[in-house]
């Protein structure tokens, strides 16, 4: 496929991009795993204070791109990233950039809840402590409580903050991971299928939580549930075989997609 057919359909000139400031700009990004070309000439603007959803069949590159945004792919030896990804105008692949600092600004929540095998309190306190965010013990406690509150978990765990994080239910663990991500004051939160291991009620609580916190963060969510993408996001990007096929306002992506591949995918006609 040549570059011209690879230009994504800017499906409806997304309103959301006009209304919000742009937080992340990707320009001609290519990602390779050894010989495999996982992302091809991807360019996209991602707005601040909104939820952007990445959808597409397995292997389409959506998670790969997500992981490029906080340089998680650095940990994979065969992985090579070219092109520019800018956060607030600063290229995150610059040599002088501190990856640890970047990951404090760009938090991540994974598919399977992965609390540390420590107490609930320590799970949330860990980040602020190593990043030197808390000035005092009282300050740290306040950060933990407010993070747990933002993640709508506090009421359920306030009497057992010393219990192990792993003793919580799956949905609670995931909210604990969100609290942990929030605790270091990130600007961007990346979520890689955050609800796929949860039951519908726990998923609904996460969705509600995303909706509550989206005013303050740039959130990107990778999800296999089209309905979830339609419910929680304002902007949707559809990936296929390493190409960003189409992105636009979520309301329009799910009702009147422009590209036939998008249409086939969201209506369940693929492959």
């Amino acid at each position, binding site marked *: 496929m040549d570059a011209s057919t690879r230009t994504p359909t800017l499906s409806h000139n997304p309103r959301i991009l006009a209304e919000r400031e742009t937080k992340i700009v990707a320009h001609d990004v290519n990602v390779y795993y050894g010989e495999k070309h996982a992302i091809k000439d991807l360019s996209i603007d991602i707005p601040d204070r909104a939820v952007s959803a990445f959808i597409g069949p397995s292997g389409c590159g959506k998670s790969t791109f997500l992981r490029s945004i906080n340089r998680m792919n650095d940990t994979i030896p065969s992985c090579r990233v070219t092109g520019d990804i800018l956060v607030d105008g600063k290229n995150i692949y610059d040599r002088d950039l501190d990856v640890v600092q970047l990951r404090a600004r760009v938090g991540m929540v994974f598919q399977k809840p992965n609390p540390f095998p420590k107490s609930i309190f320590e799970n949330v306190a860990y980040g602020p402590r190593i990043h030197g965010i808390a000035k005092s013990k009282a300050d740290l406690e306040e950060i933990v409580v407010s993070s747990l509150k933002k993640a709508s978990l506090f009421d359920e765990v306030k009497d057992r903050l010393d219990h192990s994080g792993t003793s919580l239910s799956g949905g609670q663990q995931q909210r604990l991971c969100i609290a942990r991500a929030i605790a270091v004051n990130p600007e961007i939160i990346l979520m890689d299928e955050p609800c796929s291991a949860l039951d519908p009620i726990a998923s609904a609580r996460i969705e509600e939580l995303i909706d509550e916190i989206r005013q303050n963060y740039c959130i990107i969510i990778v999800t296999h549930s089209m309905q979830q993408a*339609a419910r929680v996001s304002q902007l949707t990007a559809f990936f296929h075989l390493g190409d960003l096929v189409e992105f636009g306002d979520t309301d329009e992506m799910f009702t009147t997609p422009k590209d036939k591949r998008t249409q086939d995918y969201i*209506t369940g*006609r693929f492959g």
Partner: protein
Amino acid sequence: MSDHTVKSYDDDLASLKQMLAQMGGLAEEQLANAIDAIAKRDTKLADRVIAGDEKIDALEHQIEEKSILTIAKRQPMAQDLRQIIVAIRISADLERIGDLAKNTAKRTHAISEQMPRKLVSGLTRMGNLAQEQLKNILDAYARNDADKAILVWRSDEDIDALYNSIFRELLTYMMEDPRMIGPCTHLLFGTKNMERIGDHTTNIAENIYFLVHGKAITEERPKKDSTSTTNYNLTT
């Protein structure tokens, strides 16, 4: 459009479409018979039309149930969702068309033998036009043909124009001979029914356009029905 990965989803949508085709066929038949009944003052045929309306009503319920079930089961998106929503809407229009045909048939009983035949000719002409429009729009639906739907939508003005002239014609008869007021009023209602059927046909056209393009028709529909605003002075 290619098939769904889940084959039974295609079956669900196909059966909706098939039920709607059946409903459309019945509505066409009812309309044809109603016009025939009133033109020939065939009360037996009229009774058959009156009894036949039940089948259309039953189909509307079936379509509604199937639609709700399909939405619940499949969480349809984009064109699939429109397909279902549009099926519900079109079935409602067809149901109304059935009612209007039935109402027209009923009037066969009310207009008596002594009424001059020429009085009915206006209603017959309008009925034929409405019938043709209905047939065309059902074809357009069966083929997802938005262009054809637009043509039908635009040509509704022909029905409106004809309605105006029949309206005036019947008024003239009534002014000439007050004994004609009874039957002419029934005929007037009958022609109004045909005009309404034309309106339901344009609704269906709008829905086909929405189904195909995902947006509403933006142009203004030409309207020629001026009877509601015309002042008829009987003393002149």
